């Protein structure tokens, strides 16, 4: 197998040098892309139509989320979704949507793609907006009457929005002199 692969790699290198266009595949249709397109950018690109209120979110949360995340999102078998602001530099940091997550769009995206844990995809876009509104509200990030939709959600400024820095590594051990 190794010999075989090596042989092909050599040939492939020649092909690559000729900059081939293989001509495989075809452009996906708009429907195909839409069917696969559930990724949401932090500027809101990809967010669907629909809207949700804090009040509606409270009910959906009680029905679909609380059995794992707790009645007040304080955590259970699932992680807590509320609290922890001001703890990140403490000995026991509590990383939640409210204290840690830098973008509200990520909350929408993750609930939409992965929650509820046993039935991902169950919630329709307006329900996702509502649950996000509720979680942001109980974290003190939006008011009781604020409605979340494709316009308002990307404008929400999360408390820890500026809490992230670029990777400075190697920060330890780099070019260290041989120790004694």
């Amino acid at each position, binding site marked *: 197998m190794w010999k075989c692969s090596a042989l092909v790699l050599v040939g*492939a290198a020649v092909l690559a040098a000729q900059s081939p266009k293989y001509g495989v595949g075809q452009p996906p249709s708009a429907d195909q892309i839409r069917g696969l397109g559930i990724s949401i950018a932090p500027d809101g690109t990809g967010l669907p139509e629909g809207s949700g209120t804090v009040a509606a979110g409270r009910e959906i949360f009680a029905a679909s989320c609380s059995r794992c995340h707790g009645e007040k999102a304080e955590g259970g078998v699932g992680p807590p979704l509320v609290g922890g602001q001001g703890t990140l530099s403490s000995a026991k940091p509590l990383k939640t949507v409210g204290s840690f997550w830098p973008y509200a769009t990520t909350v929408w995206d993750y609930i939409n793609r992965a929650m509820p844990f046993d039935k991902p995809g169950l919630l329709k876009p307006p329900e996702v907006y509502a649950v996000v509104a509720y979680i942001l509200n109980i974290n003190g990030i939006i008011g009781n009457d604020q409605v979340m939709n494709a316009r308002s959600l990307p404008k929400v400024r999360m408390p820890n929005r500026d809490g992230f820095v670029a990777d400075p590594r190697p920060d330890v051990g780099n070019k260290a002199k041989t120790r004694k």
Partner: protein
Amino acid sequence: MSACHVCRSRTAPAPEGRYPQLFKRNILDSLGCAIAALPGQPFQALREQFEEYRAPGRCTLIGGGRTSADQAALFNSGLVRYVDLLVLECGGNSGSEWAAQTAPDVQRSHGLVSCSEWTGVPLSLLLAEAGVRPGAAWVIAEGADACRMERSIPMAKAMNDILLAYGQNGEALRPAQGYPLRLIIPGWEGNANVKWVHRLQVTDQAFMARDETAKYTDLMPDGKARLFTYQMEAKSVITFPSGGQRLSGPGLYELTGLAWSGRGRVERVEITTDGGRSWVKAQLQEPRLPIAFTRFRLPWRFEGREAVIASRSVDESGYVQPTREALIEVRGTNSAYHYNGIKLWKVHADGTVTNVEV
């Protein structure tokens, strides 16, 4: 060679069900291996075979501008077959050591790592085939698993050495490993190696997915978290003698273990048997491949006295695996991920081996 393999292949011993489908795919794979290097007619014939046998499932590249690489799992084998031996390590491997070195054995302290022979097509080739617009800076990869696992990958890495893999250790990817397609990102944390890839979206911005913001970021003592910490650094662990094992008595033993680095080859490994006061160079097993497990060995006479043993690896970039204390001095104990500190084991006078904090 591949043609012979195809001629010899039979479906007879295969069970009913989906196995014949795999058989067809393997034949196509082998044909692809042989024909990929040839221009012209044979490749056209292969493409016709694809059309005849193509299976359901699709990998779609969005945002390229000119075309997309549909049915990539099959087409890949007709493009370029690229094989590489690579470590795949979870960003959280040995993360429990941040708090204390209390894991009882290697499996539980360092078990979230493996080394496999991966087969796939360079992502750079597919991106070039699809055409990438100027300004495209990220590739958003999404899996077809229940939670639609998503990560943002910088275009520079995508154009460098990422594989869209369909084979592992000489066979098709197994379902649990991401069949039919997964990303293999040399030297980067396992989580970014998205499995069951069904969509690659080229964008101008990172999408700040949950697994690259809420998770897999490294919280520092000042409360700031490091973002996009993909790189895995040099690491090693002694596997014999290690926690849970027992030396039968004083005598000559061979210390051995594994070293690796996400930055390239392991340049050397040093071993201490006196708790870090002195270090001796271990013998490295060749070949030392970049970003692959490197086995190290050192003869050692156990005198029947308590000994604290450890290894440290140095990679080709000059990076020296740090002590746990050195890591904590800079990063504190709440960063959760990317721990690569020197791993200590305590050999007790009776030959039993434990972690150093029992």
